[in-house]
């Protein structure tokens, strides 16, 4: 199909606003990151010089970077399955329930809407070692209290729990949308066909028909978990002893506390590659699904 010149002009005019915005806020910062990553620029400097792969070589030898990367992956490995499972289970329960559906939906979705920074402050109070409600409850139940955010062995997992609490409502809403797209007739048919229990119906219908939603939820959850920053910044500042140092926090600290912009840009590129990799996985799985459907 060939387009006339006027159609071409109209097309260009129509994509212009979006293109300008994308150039300004996406491609421009991204390309400056790519440039900075190969320089020795420090925030506030008047000059910079290219240093080739020096920043990346330094990263390879930087224990903080590796700690930060592994912390991010551990955080992700806890939050992604946790928030997906909790999201799926609560979506299934709300979907099966008859009353108060919108109440539960709203209640579970609230943390997604709330400002995480403000919520982090509330969590800080709840987790306070001496007068926090969490330790008070633990003591009342006969368990030993913990210094949740100052104990290097558990701080990252505490942050992961907060991450799950914050994000499962979003997954739940996505799963609920997916569930509502499954025809009710299928469940009736499964009942007539003799599925012995709810688990068999879930395996026969719900799980396979939710697959596209599950892939989408998985990818967004992974990317969102890579982006953890607010809680770290508000609650632990990466401590104790880098136990909760995560990629985004390291980038922030390197770039805006130590002013090592070149270094921060190099970490950012690693971060971007991770996110792009996950997105590509989704793209591939979508293509596969599309071909078989």
């Amino acid at each position, binding site marked *: 199909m060939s387009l006339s010149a006027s159609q071409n002009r109209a097309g260009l005019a129509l994509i212009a606003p979006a293109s300008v915005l994308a150039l300004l806020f996406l491609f421009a910062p991204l390309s400056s990151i790519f440039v900075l990553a190969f320089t020795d620029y420090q925030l506030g400097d008047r000059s910079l010089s290219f240093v080739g792969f020096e920043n990346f070589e330094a990263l390879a030898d930087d224990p903080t970077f590796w700690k930060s990367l592994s912390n991010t992956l551990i955080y992700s490995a806890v939050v992604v399955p946790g928030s997906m499972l909790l999201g799926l289970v609560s979506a299934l329960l709300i979907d099966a329930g008859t009353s108060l559906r919108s109440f539960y939906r709203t209640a579970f979705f609230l943390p997604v809407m709330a400002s995480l920074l403000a919520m982090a402050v509330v969590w800080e109070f709840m987790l306070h070692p001496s007068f926090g409600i969490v330790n008070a409850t633990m003591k009342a139940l006969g368990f030993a209290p913990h210094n949740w955010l100052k104990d290097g062995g558990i701080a990252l997992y505490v942050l992961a729990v907060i991450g799950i609490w914050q994000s499962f409502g979003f997954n739940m809403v996505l799963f609920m949308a997916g569930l509502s797209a499954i025809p009710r007739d299928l469940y009736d048919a499964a009942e007539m066909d*003799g*599925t012995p229990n709810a688990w068999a119906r879930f395996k026969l219908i719900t799980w396979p028909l939710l697959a596209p939603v599950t892939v989408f939820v998985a990818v967004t959850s992974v990317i969102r978990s890579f982006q953890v920053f607010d809680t770290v910044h508000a609650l632990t500042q990466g401590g104790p002893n880098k136990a909760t140092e995560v990629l985004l926090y390291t980038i922030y600290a390197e770039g805006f506390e130590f002013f090592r912009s070149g270094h921060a840009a190099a970490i950012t590129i690693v971060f971007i590659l991770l996110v792009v990799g996950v997105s590509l996985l989704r793209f591939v799985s979508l293509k596969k699904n599309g071909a078989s459907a």
Partner: protein
Amino acid sequence: MAGVNIRSVAKTFGETHVLKSVDLDIRDGEFISLVGPSGCGKSTLLRIIAGLEQQSDGNILLDGTAVDRMRPRDRDLAMVFQSYALYPHLTVAENIAVPLVMRRLNTTERSLVGGLFPSGRGKRKEIAVEVERVCEALSISMLKDRKPAALSGGQRQRVALARAMVRKPSAFLMDEPLSNLDAKMRVQARGEIAALHRQLGSTFIYVTHDQAEAMTMSDRIAVMMGGEILQVDTPDRIYQMPQDLRVAEFIGSPKINVLQAVISENGTLSLASPVSIGNRVHAAFRPEAARLAGGLEAPLGGTIHHIENLGADLFVQVMTAGGDLVIVRCDPAGIRPAIGDKAGIHVDETRLHVFGADNGRIAGAFRLEGGR
């Protein structure tokens, strides 16, 4: 094989009475249609028989045993849904196998590692053989590896039938299985389902809003309206001896002619005008029970309003002086009236139905007079 007995089954959703104490005895091996306009409760009744819905009152008996507390799985019935309800991610063969897989394989044998167990493998082989047999019976073997999305409406409908048949259930429940097909496919499928019933000899309970489907396939028809069964009878008797005005109006195409009349002691009907006094009744006759006649001696008459030529039949719509539209069937080979002509209508009084103000049939012989 099973007879189905429905004993004063009622269903209410909040304040709405969807079914008002329905009684129906379905004989073993019978093809019975539940027919009625949408919202009459026929689908609800079918779902109650299936066990997908719990009745508010009354009992369902299968083969003489009450099954009210039984899950659908344990009732040994199969259902064909209007949407076909095929599992979209499974192939045709897998779809058809589901009822057998779910009943014969245990949880471990159904799981991903089920193939590791010799018992599971053996059963899977048996199931594959039975699926193949059903596919051949319905000539869909060549579709076995396709997904439902790659099938036409007619093919999907056959797959849904195959899935219902594969288990050899004691009765088939069908919820408007043909309504998603185009008109031509529907006529063909009607014949196929009727043939399938003769061949299997099982009980078929068939829900439809299409009176033509009910008339052409059933041993008996139950006409439902407003949550009640108005009449249960053979197609012939439903058509020729409707016991209720609403049955007469629902069955038959074009619709039966209904005129307001006043009845006298000796059975003479006079067509009523708004001011007539006396015992008001409905006089009804089918288009083929009337013929056009010369103007004067006929009790009814009017102006020819429209002519529908269906090829085999000519349906002439006559606007009477009273403002009623009366449809008369004419032989296309006979004299063709013209629109605007004056015509009389002669009604075969042996085929005249009279219904009281309560819609119930009034038995007896009647004479129709113009009376205006």
